[in-house]
């Protein structure tokens, strides 16, 4: 059975207006923007407290992100769940859902997964330092013209462009 051809992506301008409208609604209704990193930070704190409760209870950083009602009680957990639902529904509707390990044609699956973990570690560390990620600080901060957000975005693109000249081989 051949899978149906995937529908192509929407134009960046349409997606930008849709995303901007969603971001505006988020600020209008909740007073804050959209994010993602915060959920993974909270999740890490909860998992650490299951595995090493005493270490976590004494950790000045993780302690802040343990909540009485658990990591799924926060607004960002619900928002990230929404991202997942929206992405799943959208990709199924447009026939773009595919089980795979996405990688460059000359990269083995194992290499790709090792670099995915490595990139994830840098991202977890970086988003903690910056107190937010591309969505939570870059996009949401950008919408309220936050000075820190633009410093973040410039550093993100400069470092990304620079390093990707060396990591190009992984992807093409």
């Amino acid at each position, binding site marked *: 059975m051949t899978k149906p051809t995937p529908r192509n*992506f929407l134009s*960046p*301008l349409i*997606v*930008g207006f*849709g*995303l*901007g409208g*969603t*971001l*505006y609604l988020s600020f209008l*209704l*909740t*007073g*804050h*923007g959209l994010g*993602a*990193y915060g959920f*993974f930070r909270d999740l*890490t704190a909860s998992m650490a407290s299951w595995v090493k409760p005493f270490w976590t209870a004494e950790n000045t950083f993780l302690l802040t992100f343990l909540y009485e009602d658990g990591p799924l009680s926060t*607004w960002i957990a*619900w*928002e990230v769940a*929404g*991202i997942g*639902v*929206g*992405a799943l529904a959208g*990709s199924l509707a447009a026939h*773009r859902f*595919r089980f*795979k*390990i*996405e990688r460059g044609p000359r990269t083995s699956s194992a290499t790709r*997964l090792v*670099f*995915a*973990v490595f*990139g*994830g*570690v*840098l*991202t*977890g560390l*970086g988003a903690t330092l*910056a*107190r937010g990620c591309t969505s939570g*600080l870059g996009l*949401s901060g950008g*919408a309220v013209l936050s*000075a820190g957000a633009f410093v*973040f975005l410039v*550093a993100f*693109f*400069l470092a*990304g*462009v*620079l390093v990707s000249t060396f*990591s190009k081989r992984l*992807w093409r």
Partner: protein
Amino acid sequence: MTFPLEHPSLWLILGLGILFGVFLEAGGLGSPRKLVAQLNMRDWTVFKVMFTAIVVAAGALLVSEQVGLLAGAQLKVQTPFYWAMAAGGALLGIGMAVGGYCPGTAVVGLLTGRLDALFFIVGMVGGVLIFANYCDAFQGLFFAGMGNERETLASLSSLPGWLILLGLVALAWAGFHFSAQFESRGDGVIEAKNLTD
């Protein structure tokens, strides 16, 4: 002043998240190859989507505040820690160049069937744990370059918000204009059908 709401329901926030996920997926931002193609200057989708979204949201927020629909003082504006945010931003840029995602797009990647996104997420948990384990050593960098509370480009430059917005619109326009030259060279924009293999 009726907005923002004092106690927005979690279901409402779930709905906002769904819209966010639908648009990220529809733009192709769940694909690490498409995200990295931006860093290679081959496909300018990320720049176009992000800049359009920022300009649209910022414009709508400014107007809503002007007409008295929204209490601007109640919107969350991060206190800048310039060096910490620059260092963190750079790490996210490198993380995307080698790992292919950022936190939000990794969620989209995972829920569109990409196993590599799960490995990226495991890595992120590891990164947070490294910070937590060495948080004393990271304290200096974490608080480096603290700025004024609620500092914006407008308050920093003493220019009106609408003028800053106009500057961003000009920058976005320039990006759209010049990216066409990059995108017409080489392999060009990554389409959904390029990602099926």
